[in-house]
């Protein structure tokens, strides 16, 4: 075991994977010599050589397009999109190519690629460095979508993603890179070294894709969250004193519906939290599923707490970010309903 930040955990996952499988290659903007703007690939080029970890031109469609070609050849590319906000030029390659190659060729060709991308806000990144586009991926059949909330999961899930036979979108909440941020931006940053999920095995292990984890057992209300919002939800539960059960989805697609249904059936109440915008967000899918599967157990309308339906603002970041106060109000609301 070692103490790792989420950056170190992600790097360790790539390191372990590259050491085990010569077909794993890593590339992206600033990824090679420098090791990435968040330093997630630091040292990999020195260790594995510049044909297995290298800098790419600023061309996301080129990065993803070449990765698809490499995967068709038989490599396992794990590429970095510098910010999730930059993935749009590659959206055609992701949705109409990567996601459909197995299907349209009936398995003659496949596309085992991983696209890592820092996601979410909380770093004063403004509208082009703060977005959470996960619903643009969960709407696409053929993709898998993962959002880890801590270093231990990030490493185990990233290794699973690299070993997965299908394309995986791996969204890393950048505000969690250095600590379990609970939305209290005015407080000093907590480090992963002080958190049990910062304890990460140095070697190979995997976490199955499609399995959620209950972060806090509770009986009053179910909170369904992922990424940074898991920590915000935990803080809201403590601060309101409401006995919430907090589910960390970890994997959005495929989704661990059983864990959600079991919990909501038990609590009879549900709050869905994400940082992405409200309308047609992944929360809409979650609420719909809860309604379909738990309707006769519900004691109150299901409530969503999300980013506002606006671009991510710069100066007003903390009025946009769904922090523990807003989540806490939602918990109170569903308890009083």
């Amino acid at each position, binding site marked *: 075991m070692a103490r790792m930040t989420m950056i170190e955990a992600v790097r360790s996952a790539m390191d372990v994977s590259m050491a085990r499988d010569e077909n794993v*290659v890593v590339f992206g903007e600033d990824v090679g010599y420098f090791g990435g703007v968040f330093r997630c690939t630091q040292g990999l080029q020195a260790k594995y050589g510049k*044909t*297995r970890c290298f800098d*790419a*031109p600023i*061309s996301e*469609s*080129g990065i993803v*397009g*070449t*990765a*698809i*070609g*490499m995967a*068709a*050849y*038989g*490599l396992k590319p794990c590429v970095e999109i510098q910010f999730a906000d930059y993935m749009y*030029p590659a959206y*055609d*390659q992701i949705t*109409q*190519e990567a996601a*459909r*190659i*197995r*299907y*349209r*060729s*009936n*398995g*003659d*060709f*496949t596309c085992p690629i991983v696209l890592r991308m820092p996601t979410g806000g909380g770093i004063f990144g403004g509208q082009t460095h703060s977005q959470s586009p996960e619903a643009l991926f969960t709407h696409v*059949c*053929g993709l*898998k979508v993962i959002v880890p909330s801590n270093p231990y999961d990030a490493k185990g899930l990233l290794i699973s993603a690299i070993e997965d*036979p*299908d394309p995986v979108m791996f969204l890393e909440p950048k505000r969690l890179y250095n600590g379990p941020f609970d939305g209290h931006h005015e407080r000093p940053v907590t480090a992963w070294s002080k958190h049990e999920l910062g304890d990460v095995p140095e070697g190979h292990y995997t976490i199955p894709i*499609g399995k959620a984890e209950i972060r806090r057992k509770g009986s009053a209300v179910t909170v369904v969250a992922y990424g940074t919002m898991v920590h915000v939800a935990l803080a809201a539960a403590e601060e309101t004193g409401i006995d919430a059960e907090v589910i960390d989805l970890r994997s959005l*697609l*495929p*989704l661990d*519906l059983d864990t959600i249904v079991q919990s909501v059936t038990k609590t009879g109440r549900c709050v869905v939290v994400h940082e992405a915008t409200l309308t047609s967000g992944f929360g809409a899918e979650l609420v719909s599923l809860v309604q379909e599967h738990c309707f006769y157990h519900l004691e109150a309308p299901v409530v969503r707490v999300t980013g506002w339906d606006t671009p991510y603002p710069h100066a007003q970041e903390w009025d946009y970010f769904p922090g523990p106060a807003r989540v806490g109000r939602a918990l109170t609301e569903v308890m009083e309903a």
Partner: protein
Amino acid sequence: MDEFSRLSLHVPEPAVRPGGQPDFSNVKIPKAGSVPRPEVDVAPEEIRDLAFSIIRVLNRDGEAVGPWAGLLSDAELLSGLRHMMMLRAFDARMLMAQRQGKTSFYMQHLGEEAVSCAFRRALRKGDMNFPTYRQAGLLIADDYPMVEMMNQIFSNESDPCHGRQLPVMYTSKEHGFFTISGNLATQYVQAVGWAMASAIKNDTRIAAGWIGDGSTAESDFHSALVFASTYRAPVILNIVNNQWAISTFQGIARGGSGTFAARGLGFGIPALRVDGNDYLAVYAVARWAAERARRNLGPTLIEYVTYRVGAHSTSDDPSAYRPKTESEAWPLGDPVLRLKKHLIVRGAWSEERHAQAEAEIMDEVIQAQKQAESHGTLHAGGKPSVRDIFEGVYAEMPPHIRRQRQKAGY
């Protein structure tokens, strides 16, 4: 008064529209044999003029002339002729089958047969094409079974794609033919990635990307050239300029640059322009590019100058946007007739043998079609299962898709 007058927008127009006299006087055709053949390790800047010329081997008299000639034997040329005739017969039957309602859609190659048929000969087993929908000659010339192609076109019970993909969007890893997508240009940069992978693994195999004149306007075309140039990928980047992107003439995508081949120059990629209706020239240039790639000298961009004689697809009517007689005025002739003439000049072929071959080939295609139709056509006979809708989205079916399959009754 301001020294500048008001601005106006330039919108290019083709030389002629329906009702007009076809005019290709703007296509400058050099004499066959007049373009030099550089060494494969030539510096790209030394052959910039090849991006503005047209490499040709067959002259008007059917002779193979100049430095790009002399690469193929009688037997190879005869098999090349057979491939092109086969593709033409295949197209004719499948067009008719579409009109008979046996499939929803078809795209023919008429006039462009030499491009994919001759190119295939320059590749080896294990090399990989990333084709568009108009390169079925790559399969025909690699002896991929016609019945399988037809099964795919008919979306029948034996369709290798299990009914999921539009007709003509074939796939065959075994025959070096990447699954056709249907959206445009995406495959071009994938070809570069495949080639990069081959270089990363110190392999000996090379890749070929394919794109049409119209789709060179897509950003993926430019991404492909950047990556190919930066990493010197062992890839041949083919542009099939058949003059028309559905109803849009090539000037809309080409813009102010003289030729499509010239796009390669800014990337430091050797760029050649070739007579796409000349089987010998297409082969010679493809072989030159393949040798460059295999010697680790990097990518080559090739523009095939050809003409789309037929409609874009069975859903298109070219008489609405170009003169009906335009194809007859096309100055580079018909690829089948030109190779036929050359083989007769060589003493390896005759009118009688050609007529006999035509009948034999058509019979072969008809037999294949009968066999394919015994497995069903789009609206009759054997069909893929409804289960096939749900299979293969992922390697392992996730629970939500399993639930939906059950809901559909399967």
